[in-house]
């Protein structure tokens, strides 16, 4: 039964990821909706308001007390970007029944609690409660404004918004402050109805067994909903090549500068299309053996960190670096020089082999983390095939140095974002 999609309703799937090694079982609801300026803020608030209170627990401390009584059951909620979609996640995880003092059915109780949170919010007459909405809006606004304190994250998000301006991927994942301010008790309720009616839905269970009757209950709940115009998660426009690199400066009271470089990639899409980009990015800037770490940081001492990452289905590769202002120009030149070296294939066999080993090694560790395994599958809905980490390991082993060189040749600089100290010359 495990690792096979179980159709539950129109655009609703279940997936049981069997894994006996944990002391806990987790259940997650994953809702995929189109990323749009008009809906982003309402959608982003939903996982947070739904997991803070409900009809049965209208007070958040009462809900938290219930979770504590369930031996510290953990409720997590998040809003992420996924291709050109917004992914709303709500997860509950609880220790297995055998650990309870009184033979309680912890797993069944926790999964039923989550089901009720999703389907029975603290709402009446087409509206959420005003104090709940105000509380979640305030927290969301503080979170958006607080991003400025995490300079590395702030700089990366700024580059993305510049590079993908005017497209869904350029929209901040929780909206802007003004988007959140415009959320009302009614608009949020409409967003909840819309989520149940139109989102593509995947429910995951990770653990030893599926709680009795869970998938049947979910099927029943969704069959009572008027499902229509289900989100198509496969729609995802890749980053576009550009003739002229866009360079953006911003000055702040900081001591260390940040540079984030966004590259478009000709290789993009699902696993079958884009794995060479994964390997290329790893050799280029993945770990302490990579071109960027050994050259830009270690040999040239230009920065404290300099790393590359990729979003394969978007055809996006990013390099981010923490540098002194006077070294910014040299750091950019060297990063581009290292990319040229990748394109010419002037990296060694041992660098290639190290990367393959490291990626395969890290793939195996997915099985040792319940959260990681859950998220792995949540990020595979727009893939033609539902590959497990083991499947990907086999595919990675078949990638050649030529595949990596080909991937590198399709990587082109698109946008450079620099966050610099207020004093000092821009270089």
């Amino acid at each position, binding site marked *: 039964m495990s690792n096979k999609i179980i159709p539950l309703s129109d655009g609703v799937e279940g997936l049981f990821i069997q894994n006996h090694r944990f002391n806990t079982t987790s259940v997650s609801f994953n809702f995929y909706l189109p990323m749009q300026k008009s809906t982003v803020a309402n959608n982003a608030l939903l996982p947070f308001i739904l997991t803070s209170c409900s009809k049965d627990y209208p007070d958040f401390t009462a809900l938290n007390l219930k979770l504590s009584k369930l*031996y*510290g059951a953990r409720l997590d909620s998040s809003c992420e970007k996924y291709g050109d979609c917004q992914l709303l996640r709500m997860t509950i995880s609880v220790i297995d029944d055998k650990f309870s003092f009184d033979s309680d059915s912890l797993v069944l109780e926790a999964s039923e609690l989550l089901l009720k949170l999703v389907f029975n919010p603290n709402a009446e007459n087409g509206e959420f409660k005003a104090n709940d909405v105000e509380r979640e809006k305030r927290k969301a606004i503080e979170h958006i404004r607080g991003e400025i304190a995490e300079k590395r994250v702030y700089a990366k998000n700024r580059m993305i918004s510049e590079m993908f301006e005017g497209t869904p991927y350029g929209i901040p994942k929780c909206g802007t402050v003004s988007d959140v301010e415009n959320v009302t008790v009614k608009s949020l309720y409409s967003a909840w109805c819309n989520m149940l009616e139109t989102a593509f839905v995947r429910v995951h269970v990770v653990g030893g067994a599926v709680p009795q009757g869970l998938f049947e209950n979910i099927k029943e709940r969704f069959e009572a909903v008027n499902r229509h115009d289900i989100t198509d998660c496969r729609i995802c426009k890749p980053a576009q090549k550009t003739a002229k690199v866009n360079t953006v400066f911003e000055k702040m009271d900081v*001591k260390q500068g940040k540079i984030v470089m966004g590259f478009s990639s000709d290789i993009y899409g699902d696993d079958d299309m884009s794995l060479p980009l994964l390997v290329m990015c790893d050799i280029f800037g993945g770990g302490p*053996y990579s071109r960027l770490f050994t050259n830009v*940081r270690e040999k040239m001492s230009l920065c404290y960190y300099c790393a590359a990452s990729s979003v394969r289905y978007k055809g996006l590769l990013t390099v981010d670096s*923490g540098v002194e202002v006077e070294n910014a120009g040299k750091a950019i030149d060297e990063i581009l020089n290292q990319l040229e070296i990748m394109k010419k294939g002037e990296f060694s066999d041992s*660098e290639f082999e190290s990367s393959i*080993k*490291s990626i395969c090694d890290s793939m195996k560790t997915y099985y040792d983390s319940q959260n990681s395994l859950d998220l792995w599958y949540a990020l595979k809905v727009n893939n033609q095939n539902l590959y497990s980490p083991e499947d990907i390991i086999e595919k990675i082993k078949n990638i050649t140095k030529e595949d990596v060189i080909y991937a590198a040749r399709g990587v082109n600089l698109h946008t450079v974002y620099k966050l610099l100290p207020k004093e000092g010359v821009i270089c």
Partner: protein
Amino acid sequence: MLKEVIHGDIGESYVKAVHSSGLKIYILEKPQYNSCYAIFGTKYGSIDTTFSVNGETTSVPEGIAHFLEHKLFESEDGDAFTKYAKTGAYANAFTSFDKTCYLFSCSNLFYDNLEILLSFVQSPYFTQATVEKEQGIIGQEIRMYDDSPAWRVMFNMLLSMYKNHPVRIDIAGTTDSIAKIDADLLYKCYNTFYNPSNMFLCIAGNVETDKILKMVEGGIKESKPLEIERIKPEEPEEVLKSEVSQNLAVAQPMFCFGYKLPYEKMPSVKDRVCIEILLEVIAGDCSPLYKKLMNEGLINDDFSFEHFCGDGYNAVIFEGDSCDPKAVAEEIKAEIERIKNDGINKKLFSAIRSGLYGSAIRSFNSVESCAMQFVDCAMNDTSLFDELKYLKSVTMESVLKRLALLDSEKTVLSVINPLKED
């Protein structure tokens, strides 16, 4: 090698062994797992600025433990990361107030990686040229932390809480202090603190205990245990100043509100469990205080607390973002006084105890978490299952006893305010 098997009642058991050199070894086998996590560490951190061995006292520049951690990856025959690259392991290291740890995680070639770890940590190689290069890199790391409001709010609090204790020193030091570090000083610190009798090896995952012990038997250099006297200056019970603030690029104020607790000796497992429960009672997400602060818009989901303790220091710290940190501090103080008068709600206590018990069970899901818990066992000479055992029997009275340690006259409120607009 002295070896004992320690059993818990949740289906886990582990081996603790002591090598003839004094090195402590902890191994938890998790045969169902793919991955393994290993930590080779030393009881040496940023607070160890003055020490005495065989009657000779040495004072070293701030940040040297962290500097040494960076340099140890380089050996005469190359860089440890280059060796790990051939095996595919993930490797890293960290220095904290009281320890330095070198770690790797992998799902293949565990014994090859263990050999690399044991080898490079025992092979110091420092030259003036490599020291100077590192001063540049660490200088940039220091500047990165100077920009970090989360880092500054905590260290500003420590600077105001502790007059003399070196816990007030920045772990990485300053650009001035690291400029005083040279190869000779690095060797001096290495030869003192990286003696195996001061070290520990902590492993969890898909491993074989006997194979590891055999490797370690022959893999640790011969040495005589060293008696290290860690010299700490006298620290008054009072705080230095009760408020401190700084302006950085934040959207709203960040705060760190700490109570300085008395210190006679390192808090025991019972002390730490009771204080953990106490903090949840005072300000956990089931508590009346949490409800009040959240409903009044004074805290958000980043609110947290911790018991912060080590050799010579003991504090509880509440942290978060708030439009009015002073109001949060006053409410915390008021709630503590209320609990002193009214006691603890029975249902709340029972739920919190169940919750912490469940969290302790959950922690065994992760090989990294198990290995890090072993580090704690090595540092404090405790067992992996002590917390779980005590959580089953801890009473409300024991928790209430610890409430007396929180003295509102010995608090520090550290705030990072937004920059003033020009």
